[in-house]
C-alpha cells in the first residue's frame, strides 16, 4: 500500500514549464477563437502565433540557467535556453511564410496554426529535459503534429510523404522506447544524469548491453537527424511537404534532435566510450558523403536541398562526435547560420511555387525552371545565387564561418583527417549548388514569362528573404558576438 505523496508547489517550480505552457495555451486560444467566430483570415492567426511565439521567447529569455523543476524532469540549462531561442526564432521566421499572395489549403484552417504551436511546444520539451520520458513525450508530440501539418498541404504527394514519415517515425519511436528501456534496465533510472552517475559508479560493467541500448538510441535519433541509413524519409518528405514547411523541417527538428543527441551521447564520449565515438565518426563520414553524391544527381532543386541538408546535418554531427566546448558552440553557430541561409533558399522556392507543372511532370522546382533567371529576374537570381554560394561554403557568406569553426574544432582535437574529409565533401557539394547557379546565370531562359518566379511573392515574404540575404552576406560581422553568446551558454551547461 503506497502512502500518499504530498507535493509542495514551490518544489514544482512551474516557472520552468512556463514557455511550453505559453505555446500550448496559445494554441488552445487559437482553437477557441475559431470556435467563437468562423472563417477569420489567416493573417490574424499568423500574427497571433507570431505574438505567442514572441511571448514564449520572452519567457525563455527570462529563465535563469541551471534550474530543475516539475519533479526535476525539467532541466533548464544553457543548451535548453539556447536551443529554445533558436527554435522559437526559426518558428517566428517561418510562420509568416504562410502570408503568400496565393491561397493555400492548409492555411485556411486555424488548426494548422494550433498544431504548429503544439509542435513548437513539443520541441521545447525535447530540449528542456534530460528525462527520457519527457524527451519521448516531447518528441512524439512534435512528430505527430508535424505529420499532420505535412498532410494538411493536401496534395497527393504530401499525403504520401506524411504516411511515409509517420510509419518510419513510429518505428523510430519503438527504437527509442527500446533504448530507453535498456538504459532503465541497466541503471534503474531514466534521468540521463543519474544514468551517467550509475554507469560511472560501476565503471561501465556489462558494456555490451549498454552499447545495445546506445544502438537503439542512435537509430531513433539518427532517424530524427536523418543520418544514413535512417535518412531515407528526408528527401521524399521534403518533396511532399510545402517548401516553407520543408525549410522548417530542415532546421528546427534537427536542432532539437542535436540537443537530445548531445545529452545522450556526450557523457558517453566524455567518459571515453570509444565505441560511440568511432560509430559516430563512421556515421558522420557516411552521412556527409552519401548525401552529397546523391545530391549530385538530383533533378529537382528542392530535393537537392533535402539531400544537402542531410549532408549538412552530418557535417554538424561531427561536432557532437568531437565533443569539445568549441565544437558544441560551433554546432550552434553553424546551425544558426544554416537556419538563415536555408530559410532564404526555401523561401525563394516557396515564392516561385506554381500549380501547373510546366517543366517536369513530377517536380515543382526542376533546374530547368530557373534557367536564364538572370535575364528575367536579375535580383532574384543574384539572391538565390548568394544562398547557394553560402551553402557551398564560399567565403565570406554565412555558412563558410560555420564550416570554418567546425573544421577548426576538428583540427584542434586532432581530427585532421576528418577535417580533410569535410573539405573534400564541401568541394563535392559545391558542384550541385553550382549547378543551379549555372542554370540561372549561364543558360538561356526556357519558355517562361518571369512571373512564375514571383507567383506568390508578397511583402512579408520579400522582407524575410531580404532579411536572410543581409544576414548571409554580412554574417562575418555577426559571428563574433554570436559566438560569445553561444559559448557562454554552452559552457554554462558544461558541454
Amino acid at each position, binding site marked *: 500500500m503506497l502512502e500518499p505523496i504530498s507535493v509542495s508547489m514551490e518544489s514544482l517550480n512551474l516557472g520552468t514549464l512556463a514557455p511550453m505552457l505559453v505555446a500550448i495555451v496559445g494554441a488552445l486560444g487559437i482553437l477557441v477563437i475559431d470556435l467563437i467566430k468562423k472563417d477569420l483570415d489567416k493573417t490574424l492567426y499568423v500574427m497571433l502565433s507570431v505574438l505567442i511565439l514572441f511571448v514564449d521567447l520572452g519567457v525563455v529569455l527570462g529563465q535563469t540557467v541551471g534550474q530543475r523543476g516539475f519533479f526535476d524532469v525539467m532541466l533548464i540549462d544553457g543548451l535548453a535556453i539556447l536551443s529554445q531561442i533558436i527554435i522559437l526564432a526559426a518558428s517566428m521566421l517561418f510562420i509568416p511564410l504562410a502570408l503568400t499572395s496565393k491561397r493555400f489549403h492548409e492555411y485556411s484552417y486555424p488548426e494548422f496554426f494550433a498544431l504548429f504551436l503544439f509542435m513548437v511546444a513539443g520541441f521545447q520539451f525535447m530540449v528542456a529535459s534530460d528525462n527520457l520520458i519527457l524527451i519521448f513525450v516531447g518528441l512524439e508530440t512534435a512528430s505527430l503534429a508535424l505529420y499532420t501539418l505535412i498532410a494538411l498541404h493536401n496534395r497527393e504527394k504530401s499525403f504520401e510523404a506524411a504516411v511515409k514519415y509517420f510509419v518510419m517515425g513510429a518505428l523510430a519511436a519503438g527504437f527509442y522506447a527500446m533504448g530507453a528501456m535498456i538504459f532503465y534496465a541497466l541503471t534503474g533510472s531514466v534521468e540521463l544524469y543519474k544514468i551517467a552517475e550509475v554507469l560511472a559508479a560501476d565503471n561501465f560493467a556489462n558494456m555490451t548491453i549498454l552499447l545495445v541500448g546506445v544502438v537503439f538510441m542512435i537509430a531513433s535519433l539518427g532517424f530524427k537527424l536523418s543520418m544514413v541509413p535512417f535518412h531515407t524519409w528526408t528527401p521524399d518528405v521534403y518533396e511532399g511537404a510545402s517548401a516553407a514547411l520543408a525549410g522548417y523541417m530542415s532546421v528546427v527538428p534537427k536542432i532539437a534532435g542535436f540537443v537530445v543527441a548531445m545529452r545522450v551521447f556526450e557523457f558517453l564520449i566524455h567518459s571515453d566510450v570509444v565505441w560511440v565515438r568511432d560509430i559516430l565518426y563512421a556515421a558522420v563520414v557516411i552521412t556527409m558523403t552519401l548525401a552529397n553524391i546523391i545530391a549530385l544527381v538530383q533533378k529537382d532543386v528542392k530535393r537537392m536541398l533535402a539531400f544537402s541538408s542531410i549532408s549538412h546535418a552530418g557535417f554538424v554531427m561531427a561536432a557532437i562526435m568531437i565533443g569539445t566546448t568549441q565544437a558544441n558552440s560551433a554546432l550552434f553557430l553553424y546551425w544558426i547560420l544554416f537556419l538563415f541561409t536555408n530559410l532564404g533558399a526555401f523561401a525563394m522556392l516557396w515564392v516561385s511555387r506554381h500549380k501547373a507543372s510546366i517543366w517536369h511532370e513530377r517536380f515543382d522546382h526542376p533546374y530547368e525552371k530557373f534557367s536564364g533567371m538572370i535575364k528575367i529576374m536579375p535580383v532574384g537570381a543574384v539572391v538565390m545565387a548568394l544562398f547557394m554560394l553560402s551553402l557551398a561554403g564560399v567565403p565570406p557568406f554565412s555558412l563558410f564561418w560555420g564550416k570554418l569553426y567546425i573544421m*577548426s574544432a576538428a583540427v584542434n582535437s586532432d581530427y585532421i583527417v576528418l577535417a580533410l574529409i569535410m573539405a573534400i565533401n564541401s568541394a563535392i557539394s559545391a558542384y550541385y549548388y*553550382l549547378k543551379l547557379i549555372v542554370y540561372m546565370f*549561364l543558360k538561356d531562359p526556357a519558355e517562361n514569362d518571369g512571373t512564375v518566379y514571383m507567383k506568390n511573392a508578397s511583402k512579408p515574404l520579400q522582407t524575410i528573404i531580404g532579411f536572410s540575404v543581409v544576414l548571409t552576406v554580412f554574417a562575418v560581422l555577426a559571428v563574433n558576438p554570436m559566438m560569445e553568446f553561444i559559448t557562454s551558454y554552452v559552457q554554462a551547461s558544461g558541454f
Partner: protein
Amino acid sequence: MDHILSVLVFFPAIAGLLGFVVSKESIRAYGISVAAIEFLLSLWLWFSFDGNYPGMQFVEMLPLIPAFGISYYLGVDGISLFIVVLSTFITLIGLIALSIEKDIKNMIISLLFLEMTMVGVFVSLDAILFYVFWELSLVPMLYIIGAWGGELRIYAAIKFFLYTFAGSLIMLVGMLVMAYLYHQATGVWSFAITEWHRLILPMNYQIWLFIAFFIGLAIKVPMFPFHTWLPYAHGQAPTIGSVILAAVLLKMGTYGLVRLPLPMFPDASVYMIYPVAVLSLIMIIYTAMVAYAQKDMKQVVAYSSISHMGVIVLGTFAMNPEGIAGSVFFMLSHGVVSGALFMLVGVIYDRRHTKLMSEFGGLAKVMPHYATIMGIMVMASVGLPLTMSFVGEFLSLAGFYQISHTMTILAGTSIILGAVYMLSLYKKSFFGEVVHEKNKNLKDLDGKESMALWTLVLITVWLGVYPKPVLEPINTSVESLVSFMHKKAITKEAREVIKPTVIKREAE
C-alpha cells in the same frame, strides 16, 4: 591617407553595385572611368610607397572575429605592391579594349567585382581574409567564362571553379592547422600571416603543412599535373576573361607561394626544392612542346603562359634574392606580356571568329600595324633582352642556377622552345601569302585596340630597359624576406641553401 588600401579594395565593388543603376548605353564609359580612377589610386599608392623600407606599409588592422584571431588586416610591401598595380592596370586596359556587346552591363559589373577580389588577395595579410578574396575571385570569373564563352564554356567554367575550389579547401585545412599550432605555441588565436611567419615549426609539421598549402596554390598556378583546367578556361573564355586570368589570377598562386609557404616553412621549402623543381621543369618543357603542337592561336598562348609560370616557380624556389626578386618581376612581365598576347588573339578573333592558325597567313601584309605589335609581343614572350620578360627570366634562371646547374640548363631550354612555338605561330599566321579570301580585306587595329596595345608595348619596353623603379622596391623586400628565412631556418641544409645576397659578402 592611411586607408588607401581599403579604398583600393572596396572602391570597385561599390562602383560595381552602383553600376546596376547606370544605363546600358553608358555603362562602358562608367566602367572605364571607374577602372581609371582605381588605377590612379594604385599609382598614388605606388608613389607614396617608401621603396627603401622592406616591411609592410599602409597597414590597416581591424579585428573582425577577435575571439578567433581573424581580423581585417591589410598591407603592402614591395612584393605585393606592383602586383596590385598590375591588376588595376590590366583591368583598365581590358575594359578599354573590351569588344563585347552582349549583356555588357553584367560583364562590366562582374569585372569590377573581380577587380575587388584581385586587389584584395594581394593586399590582405590575414590568412582568412586572403582566403575569402581568393575564393570570391572564382565567382565572377565563373560567370565571365560561362556566360560569354565558347561551345564548352559551361564545362570549362565548372571545371575551373571546382578544381580551384577543391584545392583551396585543402589549403584552408592547412591554415586551420597552422592557426592551431600558433595557438598551441602562443596561447592566442591569430590568422595574421605576419604572425605566422614568426612561428618556427618542427620539420615534419612543416612538410605536411607545406604540402597542404602547396596543393592549393599549385592548382592556381597551375603546376603540372594540375594544369589541365587552364587550357579549357582560356580556350572558352572571352578575350577579357583570358587576359585577366592569365595576367592576374594565375599570379595569385605564385604570389601565394612567396607570401605563405616560403617564409612560413623555410626548411620544408628547401627540403621540397627538388620535387618542386622537377614539376616546374616538366611544366616548362612539356607544356612548351604541347604548345608547339597546338593548332589554335589562343591555345598556344595559353600553354606558353603555363610554361612561363614554370620559370616563375623555379625562380621562387631559388631561395636567393636574385631568384625570388626575378620571379616576382617575371610575374609582372608575364602579366603584361601574356595579357597583351591574349588581347591580340582576341583582336583577330573579333574579326574572323576563328583562332585556327591554318585560317590565317600573310596577315603581316593585311594588318601591318597589328603584325608589328604582335611581333614585339612575341619577341617579348620569347624573352628578348630590353623587354620586360627578359629581366624576369634572366634573374629567375640566374637565381636558380645556384641551386642546380643541370636543372637550370634544362629550364633554360624554355628560351629555345619558346622561340620554336612562338615563331612558328608568327610564321604560320603572319608570314607567307594571304591565302584565304576572308583575310584579304581585314581592317587593321582600330583606335581603342591600338591605344590599349601600345600602352602595353611601351610598358614592356620601358621596364625592359629601365626596370629599376620596380625592381628596387621588390628587391628591398625580397632581400629582407630571404635573410629572414635564413635566420628562421632550423635545419643546417636550409641555412646553407637559403643565401641572403651571397655575392655582396664575397665582394666585401
